């Protein structure tokens, strides 16, 4: 018995004797998403103690995961763009713009949903290409260029909606115009409704008196949020393009010198944030059946905050999509969770600011550790 273990040990490739075994906790410490994960645990513990118990029922959890998911979809894209070394402040306005771009063809022109979606995402990609190209050609900070787009897109949405409705800033009737298109299953309402009915029958989840489940399913936003986190993480860590994202943000000149197409990478990332915002705008428009020029106000900052809490460096080249995932969950949990407590809701803003400050200080510390503790 002992002999067999010995022989298998010698058959295995010899371990490098000069390799100092790095303890697992140091490896975890080096991950950019550590702060956000620790933060999520702390915030969860806090609300487990202080919030009414409804918060952690199925319905309560969905109530904070839904806004977290909407923000998270933006935050993941914002995180990738930040890792590539740029910002996009046009994201919030893009939500309203995207909602309008799917609403007008559906309601005013009577297009089918797929054509309307094609147009909305086509415009998103165009906006990404335009803002990205301006940033790269002029070498102006993306902060300023996309700040301009924050106003341009918001203004364009106001004008567009007033034109479409004859003076209103809200366009209604989107749900009716979309009909019962098969794509709606993926863009609005809940997923797994059948399964939830079954769970209700089995008595696994809370039901109304009629026997129908109180929670009808998982909102599609949450499914998108999880899938996009997985996809973004895979792209970032496991693909060639992911390496280019890190390189473009880490040092654009060094990356270009070894042949990384930095401009293309950055422009694709600008298109990604615009598309993520449009996705959120479209889902909002289809869920509510209307779109409004004021949708997505301040979302650009919330997305950046979630990405920073998630470990992204403002200087680029470092961060993670998983971090942004947890950053968004913290955001949703605190903003909604505070209504389950007796704490003054205005405390949320103070908490948010403090959280951001702590996250930035922590990230700075981690970066120095990652660079070798110097």
């Amino acid at each position, binding site marked *: 018995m002992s002999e067999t273990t010995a022989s298998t040990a010698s058959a295995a490739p010899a371990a*490098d004797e*000069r*390799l*100092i075994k*790095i303890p697992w906790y140091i490896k975890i410490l080096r991950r950019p998403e550590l702060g956000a994960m620790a933060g999520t645990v702390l915030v969860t513990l806090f609300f487990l103690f202080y919030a009414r118990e409804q918060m952690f029922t199925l319905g309560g959890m969905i109530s904070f995961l839904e806004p977290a998911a909407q923000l998270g979809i933006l935050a993941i894209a914002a995180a990738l763009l930040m890792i590539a070394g740029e910002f996009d402040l046009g994201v919030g306005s893009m939500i309203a713009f995207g909602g309008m771009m799917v609403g007008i063809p559906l309601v005013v022109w009577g297009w089918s949903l797929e054509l309307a979606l094609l147009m909305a995402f086509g415009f998103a990609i165009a906006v990404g290409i335009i803002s990205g190209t301006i940033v790269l050609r002029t070498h102006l900070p993306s902060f300023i260029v996309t700040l301009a787009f924050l106003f341009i897109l918001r203004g364009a949405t106001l004008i567009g909606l007033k034109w479409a409705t004859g003076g209103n800033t809200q366009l209604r009737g989107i749900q009716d115009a979309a009909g019962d298109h098969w794509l709606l299953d993926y863009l609005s309402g809940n997923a797994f409704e059948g399964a939830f009915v079954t769970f209700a029958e089995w008595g696994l989840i809370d039901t109304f008196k009629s026997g129908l489940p109180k929670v009808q399913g998982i909102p599609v936003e949450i499914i998108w949020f999880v899938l996009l986190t997985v996809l973004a993480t*895979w792209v970032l860590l*496991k*693909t*060639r393009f*992911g*390496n*280019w994202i*890190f*390189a473009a943000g*880490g*040092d654009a*000149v*060094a*990356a*270009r*010198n*070894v*042949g*990384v*197409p930095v401009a293309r990478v950055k422009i694709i990332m600008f298109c990604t944030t615009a598309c993520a915002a449009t996705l959120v705008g479209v889902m909002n428009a289809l869920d509510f059946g209307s779109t409004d020029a004021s949708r997505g106000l301040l979302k650009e900052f919330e997305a950046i905050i979630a990405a920073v809490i998630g470990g992204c*460096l403002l200087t680029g*080249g*470092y961060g993670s999509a998983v971090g942004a995932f947890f950053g968004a969950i913290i955001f949703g949990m605190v903003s909604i969770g505070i209504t389950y407590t007796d704490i003054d809701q205005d405390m949320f803003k103070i908490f948010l600011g403090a959280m951001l400050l702590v996250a930035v200080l922590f990230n700075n510390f981690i*970066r120095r550790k*990652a*660079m*070798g503790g*110097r």
Partner: protein
Amino acid sequence: MATQSTSDVPLIDVRNVTKHFGSVIALSGISLQVNSGEVHCLLGDNGAGKSTLIKTLAGVHKPTTGEIHVEGKRVSFNSPRDALDAGIATVYQDLAMIPLMSVTRNFFMGREITKGIWPFRRFDLERANAIAKEEMKKIGIDVREPEQSTGTLSGGERQSLAIARAVYFGAKLLILDEPTSALGVAQTTMVLKYTNLVRKRGLGVIFITHNVRHAYAVGDKFTVLNRGQTLGTYAKGEIDMDALQNMMAGGKTLEDLSAELGDEVATV
């Protein structure tokens, strides 16, 4: 048609290249030839046009006039990628590595090896880690963990990593931009040793420096650059260190300079 053996044709042949930036003449006639298995030192003081010349050879700038031939074929680079594809790799003084990225990710930056079929094609990190570790070992640098960030390496190790990367990816001509200027003695030795190793492998090297001692230690040929012009190329036996130093200073000898500076400095 004359059949030329490859050894007759210089690896790179720069013919009377000029480069103007608006009204500024950065290069006013550079001619230079580098053969395989040869370290060609390019010496020049600050402002002599070294950086412009490197960037022209590396595809960052296009020459205003003049020709560049690689292995007998005339080339025109539109981007650093073109130069890389032609086998010209440049290792910049301080812009070679991204400190926040791992050794492996830096090593394969822009040339990631992949596995799998699209859309599931991915960066083969396992193999990349093994290769990076192996290549670094070949030059005597023990990267304990190829996934450690490059920021943890010393300056000399980072330069050597950049050189190892270029060699691994099949560079024929390596341009080293002041690789030793920011390094201490031990690390300079390491970089010079590795430059020598690269030459033995049959690559051509353009070694840019303003340190004559470093140049003389490793160089086969020396070209002095002054005010955007080449002042001539000398083989190692033809010229000594002092003469090179004097040419770099624009004809003034160190003794002249000492005299100008007065007795106090002259006695130092």
